[in-house]
């Protein structure tokens, strides 16, 4: 003890002597057979909590000696395998006390106690058994029980505010690493442990030297599920021909993994969506992403095929297979295939308020998406320091889209028919080589080739003379416009990265790479005449046949260092762009761009972390934006590219703070983002009645955007309380009828909820979400408030019954237009799975209140819309399931 503390304690003792006098309590601790218990514990806890706690450990002959003050104490004597003995004592009255401990009734068996949550440096381990309550059926139900983990309706997982990018099961990617298929399919009772790995990299030796910021989740299976086939199958039948069938099978052995998923339903259950299709890109390891240029693909060609959440008819077929095999000590093969066929019908009624008139519109659409994905990956690990990856990905889509629009403006009624068919193919091949040369030197090489082709054909048909003044249309009783479009892209990347670890605290990374793009864009618009003739618009500025090629040679240098709890990473990327736009006349341009980046991270103790990132980003538009001749976009819109576009530039700043204390049960995170586009592409829109023509321009300072969100949760007395706040504001420029206007919108939303976590009591989650929006569009202001109270109940009772119920009410008020909307959505289910039985039965009601439509309001550049989206009626379904 140093002198200071010594003095302090002596003073304390002196002071105490003045108040109390000291006594000694002595005695022995023995078992019921009068054998002394050595090393038994005895703790004296003063009833006045300000006094010090005393303790003693018995000697070989079971004797103890406690030096106590003359105040009342609660004394506990304990010994492993014996019942603790508790008594109260006042040492001024009692000085000797012999204690006899009784053996614990049940003998000690092997007891393994695992901590429910273990937080290591970049890893959180959840021992699932300790955290679940028994009514969980799929992985997503398990994840919702884990502190700090959130799962949304689209199957996205966030942990402490950060999105999980890679999903692993037993350390192997599950269907390419997407989260949705995993959370909807993996049976809850197969999961033993969930590991969350931050700064994850598939190539493990790159983890600490690359700047990977990905978060991965690894599901570890229970031992008894390994080497066995497990899974389940469910078949259900409901009112009005509704049906659902779902099956999945899993097999995990040390060398072979196999997963199969199949689903048929017409109840709008989204097993796999068209937008997920785009996420299955293949491509290189994320270490190669840093400092790359963004090549924005325009989504004009497929946005109409994206499935909507609210449909009046749905029919889905889905099948997927995932396989991985360890061939030998150094070769691992894996492959997956996904097939999906979705048919959907939607019906939307809306009232659109333009500046000078109001349109009532009905939109009826029918979509069919067929898609297939095939992926093969080979990992070759000849030794501990070399890793080779070969990935091949194919994708094929066949989409059909049919819609009818009835538009009424004042008393004028127009009907438009639109049919579009698109076939697309995609091929991607990558090769990667990572090598750790020595402790100080590591490199990564990656090459990537992508081929993509889409050829949508569109027909518009109406009896109204559309796009008057914008297209040279020939008068007919029925107007029929045909468009054929073709997009063909060839992209090739080669990147080499070198990591030099000077010492533990200083790293230098360098990059050299080249990207070459060759894009072809073709459009043809014609009017189909009644006499089988054709009115070709190509004489009037229509029709594109564009070759766009771009070469991007880039170099990067980064320096990363550690200073105490801080780590810094800063560097620059230098891009040299050279691009050619070839249509009518060839344009060739060069540009050099310097992109700095900076990031700092501080670990403020065990569970607190703060992170700041800045980078300057550059982006290029795709070929369609450079195509300077006209093409049709819809029955009321023509579009044209701009051959003079250049790259956009934007500043991006991000600040993130997290605290995660498992012991005290408090968790919170705060994230703030700021984006400022210095230069960017803005669509100039010219309106003529409901018709519009659109053309992109390069504009200075087109966008400023702030956003921030945070979440805090704490467990108090077995109730988990959580509150979140989200703030968003953006200022953006628009070119409307050649006027550059500045618009502003901001919204703030919050949510509060409480969830009970008692044993043998229903899990009840009650919450409230509210958001406030504020828009300023070309000088006119609008405000709205949306409120959403919700209730979720899950209860397991009578050994095997689970009842679940969820309810959400939406209420929307727009002050400026005096609009009010509300609707209520509710689902309920009763599930039975007898103990030790594979069979399960479920009665489920979807849309319990039989709500016909959802009301929504939206704002776009010049339109304020009030929309009714019709949904599926009430579905009552009885399902039988069998668990393998």
């Amino acid at each position, binding site marked *: 003890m140093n002198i200071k503390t010594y003095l302090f304690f002596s003073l304390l003792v002196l002071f105490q002597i003045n108040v109390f006098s000291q006594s000694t309590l002595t005695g022995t601790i023995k078992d019921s057979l009068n054998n002394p218990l050595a090393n038994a514990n005895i703790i004296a806890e003063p009833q006045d909590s300000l006094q010090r*706690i005393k303790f003693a450990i018995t000697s070989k002959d079971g004797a103890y000696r406690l030096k106590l003050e003359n105040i009342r104490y609660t004394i506990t004597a*304990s010994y492993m395998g014996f019942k603790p003995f508790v008594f109260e004592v006042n040492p001024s009255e009692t000085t000797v006390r012999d204690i006899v401990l009784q053996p614990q009734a049940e003998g000690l068996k092997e007891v*393994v106690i695992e901590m*429910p949550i273990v937080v290591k440096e970049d890893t959180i381990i959840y021992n699932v058994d300790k955290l679940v309550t028994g009514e969980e059926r799929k992985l997503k139900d398990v994840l919702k029980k884990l502190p700090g983990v959130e799962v949304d309706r689209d199957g996205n997982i966030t942990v402490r505010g950060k999105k999980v990018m890679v999903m692993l099961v037993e350390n192997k990617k599950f269907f390419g690493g997407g989260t949705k298929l995993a959370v909807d399919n993996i049976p809850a009772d197969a999961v033993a442990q969930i590991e969350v790995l931050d700064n994850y990299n598939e190539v493990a030796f790159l983890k600490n030297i690359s700047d990977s910021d990905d978060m991965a989740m690894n599901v570890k299976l229970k031992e008894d599920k390994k080497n066995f086939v497990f899974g389940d199958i469910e078949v259900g039948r409901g009112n009005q021909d509704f049906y659902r069938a779902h099956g999945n099978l899993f097999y995990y052995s040390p060398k072979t993994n196999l997963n199969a998923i199949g689903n048929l339903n017409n109840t709008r259950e989204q097993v796999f969506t068209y937008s997920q299709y785009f996420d299955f890109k293949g491509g290189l390891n994320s270490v190669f992403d840093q400092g790359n240029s963004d090549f924005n693909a325009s989504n004009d060609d497929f946005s109409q095929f994206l499935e909507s959440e609210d449909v009046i008819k749905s029919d889905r077929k889905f099948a997927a297979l995932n396989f991985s095999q360890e061939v030998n000590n150094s070769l691992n093969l894996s492959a997956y295939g996904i097939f999906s066929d979705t048919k959907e019908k939607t019906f939307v009624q809306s009232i659109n308020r333009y500046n000078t008139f109001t349109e009532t519109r009905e939109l009826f659409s029918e979509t069919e998406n067929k898609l297939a994905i095939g992926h093969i990956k080979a990992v070759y690990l000849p030794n501990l320091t070399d890793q080779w990856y070969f990935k091949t990905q194919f994708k094929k889509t066949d989409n059909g889209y049919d819609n009818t629009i009835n538009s009424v403006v004042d008393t004028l009624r127009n009907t438009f028919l639109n049919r579009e068919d698109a076939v697309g193919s995609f091929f991607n091949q990558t090769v990667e080589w990572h090598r750790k040369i020595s402790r100080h030197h590591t490199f990564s090489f990656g090459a990537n080739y992508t081929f993509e082709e889409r050829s949508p054909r569109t027909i518009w048909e109406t009896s109204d003379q559309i796009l008057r003044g914008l297209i040279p249309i020939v008068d007919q009783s029925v107007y029929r416009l045909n468009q054929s479009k073709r997009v063909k892209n060839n992209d090739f990347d080669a990147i080499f990265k070198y990591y030099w670890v000077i010492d533990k605290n200083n790293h230098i990374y360098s990059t050299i790479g080249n990207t070459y793009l060759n894009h072809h864009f073709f459009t043809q618009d014609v009017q189909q005449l009644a006499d089988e003739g054709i009115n070709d618009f190509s004489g009037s500025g229509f029709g594109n046949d564009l070759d766009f090629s771009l070469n991007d040679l880039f170099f990067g240098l980064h320096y990363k260092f550690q200073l105490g709890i801080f780590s810094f990473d800063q560097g620059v990327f230098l891009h040299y762009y050279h691009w050619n736009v070839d249509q009518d006349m060839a344009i060739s341009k060069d540009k050099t761009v310097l992109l700095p980046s900076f990031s700092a991270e501080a670990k403020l103790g065990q569970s607190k972390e703060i992170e700041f990132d800045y980078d300057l980003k550059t982006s290029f538009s795709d070929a369609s934006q450079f195509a300077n001749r006209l093409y049709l976009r819809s029955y009321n819109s023509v579009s044209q590219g701009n051959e003079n576009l250049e790259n956009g530039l934007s500043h991006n700043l991000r600040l993130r703070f997290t605290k995660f204390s498992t012991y005290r049960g408090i968790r919170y995170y705060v994230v703030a983002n700021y984006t400022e586009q210095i230069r960017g592409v803005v669509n100039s829109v010219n309106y003529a009645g409901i018709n519009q023509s659109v053309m992109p321009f390069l504009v200075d300072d087109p966008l400023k955007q702030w956003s921030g969100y945070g979440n805090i949760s704490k467990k108090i007395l077995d109730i988990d309380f959580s509150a979140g706040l989200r703030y968003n504001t953006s200022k953006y420029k628009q070119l409307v009828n050649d006027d550059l206007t500045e618009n502003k919108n901001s919204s703030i939303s919050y949510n509060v909820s409480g969830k009970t976590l008692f044993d043998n009591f229903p899990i009840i989650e009650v919450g409230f979400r509210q958001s406030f929006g504020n828009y300023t569009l070309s000088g006119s202001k609008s405000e709205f408030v949306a409120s959403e109270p919700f209730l979720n109940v899950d209860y397991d009772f009578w050994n095997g019954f689970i009842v679940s119920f969820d309810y959400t009410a939406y209420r929307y008020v727009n002050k400026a237009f005096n609009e009010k909307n509300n609707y209520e959505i509710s689902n309920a289910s009763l599930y039975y799975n007898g103990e030790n039985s594979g069979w399960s039965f479920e009665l489920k009601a979807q849309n319990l209140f039989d709500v016909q439509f959802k009301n929504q309001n939206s704002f776009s550049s010049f339109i304020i819309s009030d929309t009714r989206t019709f949904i599926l009626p009430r579905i009552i379904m009885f399902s039988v399931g069998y668990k393998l």
Partner: protein
Amino acid sequence: MAIKQNIISALNNAKTEEFILNFKNEESYYYKKPDLEEESYLMGSRAGVSPFYTNNATNMIIRISRPLGNIAHAPLDWEITNKTKKIGDYTCRQAKTTEKLYGRQHGDYHYRHTIVWFTPEIPLNFGPKYYKGLPGLILQIEEKEFTLTAIKINLNPSEEVKITRVESDDNVITQEKSYNRINELEADRKKRMSNNR
């Protein structure tokens, strides 16, 4: 490959060390969980890599140091505070101590305050390293440079627990002696270095 790969990725993806504390009757043995020693991991752990043996019957607390031999540690003086917290399902009490440490660079002593959390629900006097002697198993140690936390407790395991015993007649030196030995080694090293010049 699966296993090999897993071990490597575990090493790289979680930079923490795991230690094991075995105890039986009056003895305990604490050691670092053996794993693949990768080049960059030879630096050792901030939490130390020496195993410890303790014996309640003979009041021994021994650090089994490879370069210095067996070093006896004096028992620590504990003060139990009123703070409690949960580690896993166990209610833990906080205890504080002040350790006297020897600084090899300056050859002097300094003091370090250490906080531990122990649970009276497991009435055993053991703990990791030389932290022991509290009325309950120590589940967490908080020091400036590291935190040790229990992640798994197995009471009454079916397998035999491994305890590397140090007998009282095994050449055990005191801490003071070990400091002298450090000084000797240090002087030796300096001498060698100046000779090489």
